[in-house]
């Protein structure tokens, strides 16, 4: 097995006693960062990913919209080919604003789904498939994967000593918190997180339908909040359905037939008969942004740094922007022989990401407030507002490019450039 031999030889000295960087959390952001660093810096740069759930069977029923910029990142770090088969391009997008029982939902905004000829602005991918591909690539590139949790850490001159739950102690130069919205590393680093709870939940499930969706994404602004139909491969769509929290809990707990009825009321019959094709679960929605994205020898990425409203499908993409910015700051410093956990690197990362995150948080929060309201005045306002956007091509183009994540001073990986 020639292939296996190559893989073996690229593996780091198994469980080496020190790391250049230790990433706590093996989700999408943590694994993507680990792969990007190994690809750019090679075997001499030791990357550890510690996550107690690494060897568990993937159990995430959600799908994610991968914006063009994030897709370029996956291409550049060599995982896109692997996931491409299961990725459904979003070819166009329709947004409607309606009351639940309106016979016709007035369409006031349509988007062609391409940022450049032949380049869709987003793809839908099921999270499980993405994680599986990232894990495979992480093994191939010699990331030191540990089924273990970060228990504690202490900074010391020149580094940070990380203790794992198993008792192992690993000195590193930088610790990355990629351990999700309730990040234990963030808390241990003493970084507060500000935000609020929307008292809404997003019901997530998968639906099979009779007719083809032709790559069309739909977002219906119903009074309780947005109801999104996002195309998956085959005649299937991922549903993200916002309701008040108690109502969401009630709906998820309904017997299958009643859940089906509630869903069909909102989904409509334009794609023919529908069938529930996956588990259903309600995720509480909130907005929170860490007070700082850095502490001494610690950097936060992904949900550990920020959780925003999923209204514009930007949560994962924001996390991947963190990955691209931190990877570039670390790689540049490493190639200059600088301390990769020093203040210069951390300050550069924070400057790069925090403003962008605040802006996105405010924008998605505003959208949600504007659209989660029955007021006719607000409805008139948003209809005319979006109607104006629809009629001005350059403005619409800007929104599409913003949704695709390619405006601003983007890090190289988001532009498809190798580090």
């Amino acid at each position, binding site marked *: 097995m020639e292939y296996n031999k190559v893989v073996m030889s690229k593996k780091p000295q198994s469980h080496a006693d020190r790391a250049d960087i230790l990433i706590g959390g093996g989700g999408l952001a943590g694994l993507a960062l680990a792969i990007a660093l190994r690809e750019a*810096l090679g075997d001499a740069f030791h990357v550890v990913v510690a996550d107690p759930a690494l060897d568990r069977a993937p159990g995430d029923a959600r799908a994610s919209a991968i914006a063009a910029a994030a897709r370029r990142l996956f291409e550049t770090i060599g995982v896109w080919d692997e996931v491409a088969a299961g990725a459904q391009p979003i070819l166009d997008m329709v947004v409607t604003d309606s009351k639940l029982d309106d016979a016709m939902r007035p369409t006031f905004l349509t988007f062609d789904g391409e940022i450049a000829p032949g380049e869709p602005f987003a793809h839908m991918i099921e999270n499980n498939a993405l994680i599986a591909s990232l894990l495979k690539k992480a093994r191939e590139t010699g990331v030191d994967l540990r089924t273990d949790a970060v228990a504690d850490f202490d900074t010391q001159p020149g580094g940070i000593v990380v203790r794992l739950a198993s008792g192992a102690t690993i000195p590193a130069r930088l610790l990355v918190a990629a351990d999700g919205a309730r990040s234990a590393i963030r808390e241990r680093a003493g970084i507060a997180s500000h935000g609020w709870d929307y008292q809404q939940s997003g019901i997530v499930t998968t639906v099979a339908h009779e007719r083809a969706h032709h790559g069309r994404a739909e977002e219906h602004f119903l009074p309780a909040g947005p109801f999104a139909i996002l195309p998956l491969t085959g005649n299937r769509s991922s549903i993200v359905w916002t309701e008040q929290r108690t109502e969401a809990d009630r709906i998820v707990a309904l017997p299958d037939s009643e859940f089906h009825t509630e869903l069909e009321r909102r989904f409509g019959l334009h794609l023919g008969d529908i069938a529930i094709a996956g588990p259903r679960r309600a995720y509480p929605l909130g907005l929170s942004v860490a007070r700082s994205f850095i502490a001494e020898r610690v950097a936060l990425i992904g949900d550990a740094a920020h959780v925003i409203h999923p209204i514009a499908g930007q949560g994962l993409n924001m996390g991947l922007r963190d990955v691209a910015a931190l990877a570039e700051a670390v790689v540049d410093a490493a*190639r200059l022989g*600088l301390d990769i956990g020093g203040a210069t690197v951390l300050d550069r990362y924070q400057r790069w990401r925090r403003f962008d995150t605040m802006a996105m948080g405010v924008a998605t929060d505003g959208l949600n407030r504007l659209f989660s309201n029955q007021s006719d005045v607000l409805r008139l306002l948003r209809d005319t507002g979006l109607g104006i956007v629809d009629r001005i091509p350059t403005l619409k183009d800007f929104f599409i490019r913003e949704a695709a994540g390619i405006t601003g001073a983007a890090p190289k990986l988001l532009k498809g450039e190798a580090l």
Partner: protein
Amino acid sequence: MPRAQAPASTVDQAEIDQFSRLGAQWWDERGPMAMLHKFNPVRLGYIRDQVTAHFGRDPKKLGCLTGLRILDIGCGGGILSEPLARLGGKVIGADPSQANIDVATHHAGQAGVMVDYRATTAEALADQGECFDVLLAMEVVEHVVDMPLFVKRCGEMVNPGGLMIAATLNRTMKSFALAIIGAEYVLRWLPRGTHRWDKFVTPGELEAAMVRAGLRVVDERGVVYGVFSDAWQLSNDMDVNYMLTAEKSA
């Protein structure tokens, strides 16, 4: 009390005392030397790229300076020496201030990086017949007593086919306004008294000294500060900060 100096030394004791006072603050990236830390990436990048191009190495490889014997004259607290050693260089960091050498040695120990730090001068090393593939005089020539003599002694230590790279401040009205008034008094980027404008060196003077030392200038580059990016970058503007690379023919 000034230490006894060998005759023909180019060391200025008042300058040494000024830098020795910094102590452990050398390595505080947000402290009094923050501006030097911000300046460090651009000069490191310049050195790395000049050296790897000259010796046919890949600048993206982590060990791109492996095996090269490098002298960092006026190494201070080791801000330049330590990164060059991490890139694989066999680095000798020399500084006349024992206090600086102590700071640099202590820090390299903590960081786990091998650097050969010595409390000595360029003249003493030249007298010992030391030779190097790369000799660095970064932000040094504006601090010595006799610049042409200093450069001559440096030139003696460059191996045939090797490089000398120097960075310094030009003596122009613009550098007086920016480097002295702006950096030390208005913005407080640098401790007051860090620089004396009358000791600044024009590119013409430095190149002439290098030529007399048997070196040929192969690259010259300005460095400017971008207000909006809050970062230093290479430029064609050599009115204030600039760097020269010179080679000794093989």
